């Protein structure tokens, strides 16, 4: 059994910076690097890309991340665990092998599959959000079950250098190496709960090192342009210390840890993952100084007997148009412009959304402490089943140039095909994971 494991997290979402993970690998003294790159809707969009091209459907930044990390990972004996496989872990593994051959290095890559359950769910199954059959939301595009740690554990045991998964619960990416390293039993829920707390604190990478935190004068964060991403030292009893590489930017303290502990938690007494239902309410955080926070406590109980499934469906086309008004009476002119567009589109778009950016677009009018701005941007958005009809929103906004209030400028228009997500549950026995090993 290992005395201590150090796991770094070098990406908290698909579009995250590339360089912090390289710093972690080169100077972090890591055993494992995790890159968490898969959000709810990211996988549905990836499924669409795979449908257009069977060799695609993995994370768009995979090649660039692996190009920079592969040799340093191998040189520093750091194993990579990532969900960058998205909708196509096998194609992602092939791509990594291709890069390794080009660089003339030896590597063992494991793809963990089995999360794609589109052919195993019934379109008549109930959506958790609506209580109605899944298919009522729209034509189904994808269904991915949140797998737990077991597939990753197997891949680690088969000595893969790089483990690439599709949909896996985020904390499972972190507890898998703990389970292997410390020989934790899969029904020791107390330890799995503690490990899940650490995984949850780590999974958004920079969000615990001062990213998404700074508020100048209130919560100052140094060096945000070179923000360091976190690592956690974990001991066999499930306690951990979160830190970052010296001389990187950012800050780790009680405040950053607390914000992250509660982030996206809908019940701190019962945080569901496929491996354990964790309890966050007994977690003890201690600031050790020097950008290190000790995490103790936390617990867990018996894992659920179903997997959660994210189901992607074809939702609608979102049409948008924007135009700016400036100078005297800018807000009134923008309001008039919005009313004109509403009057012309109200029959086609009963739910047209009209925002005055800088005035009421993110919260409501009531929370805005109105000072009259010098400039304001009108945004109109409407949903439609068809691309053509959705384009009407932008067309009408553009027509304000010669048919609307005085002095409007800078029109932009967009139409976006929107993939929606609903959730459902699937019994465990209907889902099995597979490991595919490739070597270069």
């Amino acid at each position, binding site marked *: 059994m290992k005395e201590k494991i150090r796991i770094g997290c070098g990406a908290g979402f698909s579009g995250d910076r590339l360089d912090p993970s390289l710093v972690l690998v080169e100077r972090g003294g890591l055993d494992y690097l995790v890159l968490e790159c898969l959000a709810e809707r990211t996988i549905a969009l990836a499924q669409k890309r795979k449908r257009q091209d069977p060799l695609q459907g993995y994370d768009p930044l995979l090649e660039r991340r692996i190009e920079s990390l592969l040799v340093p990972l191998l040189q520093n004996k750091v194993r990579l665990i990532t969900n960058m496989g998205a909708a196509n872990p096998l194609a992602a593994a092939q791509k990594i092998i291709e890069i390794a051959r080009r660089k003339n290095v030896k590597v063992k890559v494991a793809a963990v599959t089995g999360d794609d359950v589109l052919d195993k769910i019934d379109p008549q199954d109930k959506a958790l959000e609506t209580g109605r059959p899944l298919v009522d939301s729209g034509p189904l595009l994808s269904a991915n079950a949140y797998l737990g740690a077991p597939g990753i554990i197997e891949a680690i045991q088969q000595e893969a250098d790089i483990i690439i998964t599709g949909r896996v619960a985020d904390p499972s990416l972190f507890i898998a190496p703990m389970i292997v390293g410390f020989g934790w039993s899969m029904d020791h829920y107390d330890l799995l709960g503690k490990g899940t707390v650490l995984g949850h604190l780590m999974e958004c990478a920079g969000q615990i090192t001062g990213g998404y935190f700074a508020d100048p004068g209130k919560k100052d964060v140094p060096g945000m342009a070179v923000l360091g991403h976190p690592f956690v030292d974990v001991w066999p009893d499930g306690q951990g210390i979160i830190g970052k590489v010296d001389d990187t930017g950012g800050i780790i303290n009680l405040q950053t840890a607390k914000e992250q*502990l509660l982030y*996206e938690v809908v019940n701190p007494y019962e945080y569901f993952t496929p491996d354990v239902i964790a309890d966050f309410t007994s977690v003890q955080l201690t600031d050790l100084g020097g950008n290190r926070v000790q995490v103790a406590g936390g617990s867990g109980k018996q894992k659920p007997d179903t997997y959660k499934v994210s189901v992607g469906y074809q939702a609608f086309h979102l049409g948008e148009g924007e135009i700016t008004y400036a100078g005297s009476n800018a807000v009134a002119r923008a309001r008039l412009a919005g009313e004109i567009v509403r009057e012309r589109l109200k029959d086609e778009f009963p739910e047209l959304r009209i925002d005055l950016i800088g005035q009421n677009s993110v919260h409501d009018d009531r*929370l805005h402490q109105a000072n009259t701005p010098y400039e304001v941007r009108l945004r109109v958005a409407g949903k439609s089943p068809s691309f053509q009809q959705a384009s009407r929103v932008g067309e009408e906004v553009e027509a304000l140039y010669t048919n609307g209030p005085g002095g409007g400028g800078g029109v932009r228009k967009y139409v976006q095909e929107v993939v929606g997500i609903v959730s459902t549950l699937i019994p465990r026995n209907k889902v099995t994971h597979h490991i595919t090993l490739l070597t270069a």
Partner: protein
Amino acid sequence: MKLYDIAHSRAGDKGNTLTLSLIAYRLKDYPLLCEKVTIEKVKEHFKDIVKGDIVRYEPPNIASLLFVCHDALGGGVTTSSRMDAHGKTLSYALLQMEI
């Protein structure tokens, strides 16, 4: 005073559900948050934004409150037509509350 003077917050999203943490800078202000920032107050504050129920958790181990607001994101990040479909900016809207 405003909540902004004594607490900080981070917003998160799960589907159409908004989560808002509220964390006291100083331990001694935590009872005040528990007393003043009631579910009713948060409902009133966000009455044009949060359409569903609000649940409040009080994890005392980290001197924080957590508000879980249902039907709050115009359908959620995938199908909302709002500019901020995640509702990420709403933490600072909570901190605008006068207590």
